[in-house]
């Protein structure tokens, strides 16, 4: 199991600095929550680590530098992510979605043949995220929460070592959040999980550690209790920290 190690990460868009010198260490087996107000640079940070935007500085996973490599290479080195709006392949079935996620390393010959049966990893992942009964439904017909789960399932079959989840429980009911949180805890036993989240309640229930981002910088870091006690954090959130759910926005 490897560690995510970010040093001096900077991302600028036409003069605007979205991420401004972030240092971040996430240990193996951690379940780290990234919180912060809108525009704090949370999503951009994940974008930079996964190769979607260009960045300066360094981001290493398991000792290997990620910056500057193409997106699919980073993905193949064991880093997976989800997006704020669930992006699954709507016209494909749940099974097909998962099968594709499982198959980046397949040989040409395997690719050109039909799928004969359900691969073991796919069956397991379907079981884990509770979509076995819907295996043959097009992903486009799934409820919102189910799509989020399908995405997590895709990361599982992809067998990534580092999961970067962007607001995985947005739009879920209370019960669904609870189930998702428990799932994340189990997953993080063997992998490293980083979650961007606005839902403070959810964060308090499941985070092992928390980093607070503000204006492109890390404002505070530690356990939930430590962070909540930090006056700087309270100032940034203008007291909203105490609310159960901060409205999330794009």
């Amino acid at each position, binding site marked *: 199991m490897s560690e995510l190690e970010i040093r001096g990460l900077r991302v600028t868009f036409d003069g605007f600095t979205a991420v401004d010198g972030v240092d971040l260490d996430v240990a193996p087996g951690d379940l780290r929550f990234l919180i912060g107000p809108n525009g704090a640079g949370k999503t951009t940070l994940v974008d930079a680590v996964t190769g979607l935007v260009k960045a300066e500085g360094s981001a290493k996973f398991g000792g290997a530098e990620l910056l500057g490599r193409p997106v699919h290479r980073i993905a193949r080195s064991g880093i997976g992510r989800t997006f704020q709006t669930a992006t699954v392949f709507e*016209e*494909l*079935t749940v099974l*097909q979605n998962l099968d594709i996620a499982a198959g980046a390393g397949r040989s040409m010959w395997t690719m050109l043949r*039909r799928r004969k049966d359900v691969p073991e990893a796919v069956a397991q992942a379907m079981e884990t995220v509770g979509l076995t009964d819907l295996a043959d439904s097009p992903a486009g017909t799934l409820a919102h929460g189910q799509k989020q789960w399908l995405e997590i399932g895709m990361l599982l079959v992809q067998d990534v070592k580092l999961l970067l989840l962007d607001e995985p429980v947005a739009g879920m009911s209370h019960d669904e959040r609870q189930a998702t949180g428990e799932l994340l805890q189990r997953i993080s036993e063997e992998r490293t999980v980083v979650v961007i989240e606005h839902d403070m309640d959810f964060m308090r229930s499941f985070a092992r550690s928390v980093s607070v981002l503000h204006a492109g910088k890390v404002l505070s870091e530690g356990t939930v209790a430590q962070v909540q006690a930090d006056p700087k954090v309270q100032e940034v959130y203008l007291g909203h920290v105490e609310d159960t759910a901060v409205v999330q926005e794009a």
Partner: protein
Amino acid sequence: MSSGSGSSRVPRRGFLAVGAALTAVVTLSACGAKTDAAGSSSDKAAKIDVSGDTVKVGLLNSLSGTMAISEVTVRDSLKLAIDEINASGGVLGKKIKPISEDGASDWPTFAEKAQKLIKEDGVAATFGCWTSASRKAVKPVFEKNKSLLFYPVQYEGLEQSPYIFYTGATTNQQIVPALDYLKSKGLKKLYLVGSDYVFPRTANKEIKAYAKANGMTILGEDYAPLGSTEFSTIANKVKASKADAVFNTLNGDSNVAFFKEYKSAGLTAKSMPVVSVSIAEEEVKSIGTQYLAGQLTAWNYYQTTTGAANAKFVKAYKAKYGQDKPTSDPMEAAYTSVYLWKAMVEKAKSFDPEKVKAASDGITFDAPEGTVTVDGATQHVYKTARIGEIGTDGQIKEVWNSGKPVKPDPFLKGYSWASGLS
């Protein structure tokens, strides 16, 4: 949801089906090959449908696409001639029934429609085609089916198909006389401008050979892609060359842009005349006399050509299609071609293409352009060459003619300077 349902569960055993299909192919195609082993069939001339009291002829012109502009007028004059013939009793006692097909400015379509006319409709002869490319596309069809095509447009020569009659000018009836005319006027430094296709390139090859043998110089040669409408650079080049005259083989839309640019560059018919071989009355109308007045054209016929036959033709055409519709050389050649075919058929007393061909030599017709005579050896027509000047009224005024019909010489065999050309 940009596309249809990706219904995903699909059959597995496609390959089996393909296997079956392939077996079927092999069996069937083997049959085909075997029957052929006897050798290629020899006589399979298309059947001409002469049942009933009509005889069918095909009219093959582009009625849509870029060439429709020109070819519709040819179709109209073909119909005029057919109507006149029918009104005076038809051919061998049968009324002519025209079957009009659209070549759609697309060469394979021309070939397809030619096949349809011959094989499905059983036409006795076909009239039409404009571009060399369409003629080249249908030529094998007419030759294979031993059916006749009458081609009414001036062209680049170097062709003599046994199943095509060429009623437009070949090069020695249009381009060579135009060069003779320029030479006689002392215009010896030429600039060549043409569209990028067969006719201009071939014509310019001949012009260069002529120039070499006649002490003329070619200062430049430019081709624009068909349909090109940006001519400022070419106009600059022409202007900078200080040529005596321009020989213009541009086609269609390009002429409009060329002459507008020519005038903008300050060039005029006085300072540097342009001789065009593809601008007839119809084109003058769409370019505008503002840009064309005083420029020269080379043809075998103008609407203003004198004679009773032409007066009758122009009057009949305008009565049928409208007073504002001009008549032009290809239209006249098309009109004439129907009458020539009629005369051949009547001389042969048969619609059979072989007999019609055999009867063709020496057939004459008092055409709007003057008397024309078919040369049986080349299946071209003796025509009078004319140079005209475009007037401010849009009419073309004849300024010179060859005096008597010029014998067609598609391969320029009678010209020593052309010996290396084909």
